[in-house]
């Protein structure tokens, strides 16, 4: 099978996986009404790992990563994030959410606030750091995603790619330990996809723990240390990218890869 590739050179010196567990999911199950959306999910993510989750539409990828910061509630099993178990305890949920950043397919920037205000809102109101410091930190991250000059515009005045990079910067301003990405490039035009992926690669190079739902297999090949394939609410296959692309074990994975990599 043809191996996907990504053009940018990647600096692997700081991409280190530690032994510490960042996320542990044990026998997790989730239903939407009667529909069994996630079935016996088991997954351990270590600090510094970069995991790409792929699978056909409706396979439960979004549902799984949304369970990690409790945007969806699981009904059975355990999810432990950064040592905190997710239960109905609101304090724990808020604590987990402030440690876990999330980037959405449709950016979900706050349209009534400027880019800078989008980035400083949570640091000021959740972390309760002084406004001045929050602004400095926000400008730092906006520089990192290469749009400091847009700081005083509103989201509606930016291109899709720029908005998504702002969304990444907004999450980073909370100094999260883990980042979740739910198809961050699927709503973008091809020329904007790369600018967002490059931003994500920068993050990976700094050792961020990342869970990415994406169909960008070149990105998976370049930065992931594990690729997870899901179908019908289950994890079907899990492997390092090299073996995942060159030697998929299950028939479903092979079929999926042949569809997604056929050009």
């Amino acid at each position, binding site marked *: 099978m043809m191996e996907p590739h990504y053009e940018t050179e990647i600096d692997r010196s700081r991409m280190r996986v530690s032994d510490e567990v960042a996320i542990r999911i044990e026998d997790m199950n989730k239903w939407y009404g009667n529909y069994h959306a996630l079935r016996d999910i088991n997954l351990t993510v270590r600090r510094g790992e970069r995991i790409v989750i792929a699978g056909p539409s409706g396979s439960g990828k979004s549902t799984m990563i949304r369970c990690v910061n409790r*945007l969806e509630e699981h009904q059975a099993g355990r999810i432990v994030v950064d040592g905190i178990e997710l239960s109905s305890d609101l304090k724990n949920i808020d604590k987990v*959410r402030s440690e876990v950043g999330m980037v959405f397919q*449709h950016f979900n920037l*706050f349209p009534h606030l400027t880019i800078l205000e989008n980035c400083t809102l949570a640091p000021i109101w959740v972390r309760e750091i002084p406004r001045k410091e929050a602004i400095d930190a926000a400008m730092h991250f906006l520089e990192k995603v290469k749009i400091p000059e847009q700081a005083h515009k*509103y989201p*509606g005045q930016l291109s899709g790619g720029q908005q998504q990079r702002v969304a990444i910067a907004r999450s980073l301003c909370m100094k999260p330990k883990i980042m979740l990405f739910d198809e961050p490039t699927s709503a973008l035009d091809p020329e904007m996809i790369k600018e967002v992926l490059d931003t994500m690669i920068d993050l990976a190079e700094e050792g961020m723990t990342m869970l990415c739902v994406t169909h960008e297999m070149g990105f998976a090949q370049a930065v992931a240390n594990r690729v997870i394939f899901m179908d019908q609410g289950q994890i079907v296959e899990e492997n390092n990218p090299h073996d995942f692309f060159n030697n998929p074990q299950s028939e479903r994975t092979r079929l999926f890869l042949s569809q997604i990599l056929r050009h």
Partner: protein
Amino acid sequence: MNERNPAFVRGEMLPAREPPAGEMGLLKLLRKSLFNNWLSSILTVISLIVLVWIVRSTSPWLFDSVWNAHSLSECRQMLGVAEGACWAVIRDRWTQLLFGFYPPEQYWRPVLAFALMLLALSPVLFPPVPRRLLWFSAVFPGLAYWLIWGGTLWLPVTAYAGIAVGAVSLRLTARLGAGVGAGLAFIGALTWWFFASEPVTTMLGQLLPLSLAPVTSREVGGFLLSIVIGVTGISFSLPLGIVLALGRRSKMPLVKTLSVVFIEFIRGVPLITLLFTASLLLNYFLPPGTNFDLILRVIIMVTLFATAYMAEVIRGGLAALPRGQYEAAEALGLDYWKAQRLVIMPQALKISIPGIVNSFIGLFKDTTLVVFIGLLDPIALSNSIRATTNWQGIYWELFVFIGALFFIFCFGMSRYSMHLERRLRTDHR
């Protein structure tokens, strides 16, 4: 065509040029907007005819009018056969239409209260006004009450002190959890109002008598009354409507049910029945001997009525927000109240501005319904002016004047809302 070479390379880039100047003259513009086809030409002609007819039939009435007379019969005498308005009645009685039977030598008090109201509203309505003025906005209601009804200044002061008592007990009991703290603060404030405020008021009044001549609610009338009811109703219905809208969308079944029942009940009943309830029935329910001011009762009913509508308008705005906004706020770790206050409400309210202002205007005009329970709003005063021997039989002039005053206020609100919508637009490229 086939042999032509389709390749093209631009040698030099084109510089940006000025847009073409509007080449249409007045005539062309008229033609384009008024006579561009036969249907629009016919409509234009019909509109012109109607316009001319209206102007012709009202202008003698409006302009051949009498301003100096002491009674309607004197007016008629001066006019003779000509048709003309008798504005003299306005000249004679305008203070009554504005203030009701408020003692004339005290007119400066409501006028001052009105001027201070504009000052108190300015930091709320216009952001360039310094935020520090919001302190004055908070103090204004007590001050306005004192100015209009008179009596001792210490009454509103001790009422405010009750809020301070609540705030302090909230601070002190914060460790017991938000729910318990709020409950205790509420009880603390109530205790203060019921048991402490009266003796404290009397005591302070003896120490330092600061009081204005008292004016009773029977004397407060006219536009003063409409504005008091309207402005109080407006300023309470918005926050209460927000709370109720959130209640209706709450996941807690009890809160949700209560909100739904309240909204549906109040919306399902005509305002006038609520006003009759305020004027008659409440006396049965209240403990005998309590003297609960009629204007206050009416304000409560009008506010409740407007609140139910407001809640539905705001719920519409909340429903229009994409789910992603809630999720993004949650994912950043904002708790429910912070997410509502910083992310959801600013957007939902912005969407609802036309509906909100619509409710405000409706509420303000509905204040004229209090005529039916014996309060002296401008309509009631027009009736009483007509009942005097001098002005018996006069209708139009009074209603035109009252209508014009209401129009000024409502049109002002409408213009402000348009200004606000423009100011809050952030999606322009």
